[in-house]
């Protein structure tokens, strides 16, 4: 087992700023004279260096029910050796943020990573979310307590730089009884190394295991996915059926959204020992003439190894034929 660095190694400018603010406030409460002024000077200096934008964000971050931090699966970067970066969200009890498909009323959480030229960054992976059925039967998909949104980074085969700056921009909507939109810019710098130096191994192992499988992919438990679209005018009733490789419970279906489609009345039934049927209605919004012809959906289930999910796709109703003039 390799030693894991503490979070202080990955501290962001955001954190430093908050720390300084705390120092000033604490001293201020004590009513100290010169020390307060000195520390205030340091504070102002830090503020000056970091700019007004950072200070505005600091106040937002301090009061937000969700905080974001940037983490990596290595403590130093080796040329050509892929690693993972992630934004770790810490969410206060009773609050939630949203999955990449927010459901009927949510807004997806977005993370964008920025690395130096020559590095490639993969697609952001969203772990299997939970479903919240809010009063009024409004369905949302997302995360409570904690979530890690991750991406693979591949460094170039040769590295001429000594340090690798990594930036991330996180955007979210956090909701409990009301909703608060938030955003945070995060950054860290990793040194360049000749040998592999993993970090946060347990954290990444836990969260990569929660990333949905793909159909025919490793470790996933459903097969034989078929969807029948029964179209009536513009609307359709879809029936998606699939079989399981194991005994599954808590099977559910979380469809992606489309700006032009309303997907409702999702009903999941078990039709055989390992057979399932999902029915749902798809109604295009008035005035929309086009939409995605195929959408993804996450089939979630509890199997022998616990709760997991598989990404599948389903077809949408045929858009109306273009009128010929």
């Amino acid at each position, binding site marked *: 087992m390799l030693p894991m660095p503490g979070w202080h190694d990955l501290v962001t400018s955001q954190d430093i700023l908050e720390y300084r603010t705390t120092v000033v406030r604490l001293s201020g409460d004590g009513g100290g004279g010169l020390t307060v002024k000195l520390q205030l000077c340091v504070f102002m200096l830090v503020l000056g260096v970091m700019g007004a934008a950072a200070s505005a964000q600091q106040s937002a971050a301090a009061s937000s029910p969700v905080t974001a931090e940037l983490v990596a699966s290595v403590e130093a970067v080796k040329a050509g050796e892929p690693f993972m970066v992630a934004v770790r969200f810490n969410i206060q009890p009773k609050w939630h943020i949203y999955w990449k498909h927010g459901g009927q*009323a949510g*807004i997806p959480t977005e993370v964008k990573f920025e690395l130096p030229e020559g590095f490639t960054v993969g697609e952001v992976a969203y772990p299997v979310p939970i479903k919240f059925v*809010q009063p*009024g039967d*409004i369905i949302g998909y997302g995360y409570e307590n904690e979530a890690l949104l991750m991406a693979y980074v591949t460094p170039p085969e040769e590295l001429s730089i000594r340090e690798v700056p990594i930036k991330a921009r996180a955007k979210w909507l956090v909701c409990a009884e009301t909703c*608060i939109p938030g955003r945070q810019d995060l950054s860290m710098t990793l040194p360049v190394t000749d040998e592999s130096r993993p970090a946060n191994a347990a954290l990444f192992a836990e969260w990569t295991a929660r990333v949905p499988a793909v159909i025919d992919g490793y470790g996933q438990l459903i097969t034989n996915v078929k969807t029948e679209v029964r179209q009536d005018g513009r609307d359709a009733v879809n029936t998606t059926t699939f079989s399981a490789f194991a005994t599954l419970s808590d099977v559910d279906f979380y469809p992606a959204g489309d700006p032009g489609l309303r997907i409702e009345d999702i009903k999941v039934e078990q039709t055989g020992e390992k057979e399932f049927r999902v029915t749902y209605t798809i109604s295009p919004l*008035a005035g929309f003439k086009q939409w995605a012809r195929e959408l993804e959906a996450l089939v979630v289930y509890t199997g022998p190894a616990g709760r997991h999910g598989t990404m599948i796709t389903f077809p949408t109703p045929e858009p109306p034929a273009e009128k010929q003039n």
Partner: protein
Amino acid sequence: MRFALTSLFAVVLMGVLAMPAAAEEQKAKVGEKAPNFTLKDQSGNEVSLSDFAGKIVVLEMFNEQCPFVVKHYREGHMNALANKYKEQGVVWLAINPTYGSTIESNKAIAEKWNIDRPILHDAESKVAKLYRATNTPHMYVIDQEGTLRYMGAIDSNRSAKTEDIDGATNYVDQALQALLSGSEISTPETKAYGCTIKFPPN
């Protein structure tokens, strides 16, 4: 007599059979008649949609605690939009479907935010459900014939920042302009964005 009784029975039976379907049909849908409702405003007076027959009516699902609503009030954008069309006879009704809100809280916020339009008390979210509202703000435009002609988001930028209003397309403004000039509404329905409505516990 027997025939009459049978017919009466048949009529009653048909009525019973038709009821669930009718309830389902009643929910708001673009292109169909906007369902009527009666709610109390911030002074305690009853207001019905049918009071405004022959007029264009805007409905606005409102919650003063939602940052996406605040976005449009912070610098007076919502009031300005309502006032712009008030002169042209457009009625604007805010509806507060937030569980826990009261006539008094609606009155307080109307005074604080200079809202001279009704804020209707719908803390049981009945009208919100009737109109299939999911978010605040969630907007509706009803034409002079009482037909729902727009439902969805207030504008095209899913942000809570007031400075994003200027570059966005305001769908309500667009629908009202089209209705008043007799042209087609280019975007009659969109997905609303904002805070999830706080419905009463199930």
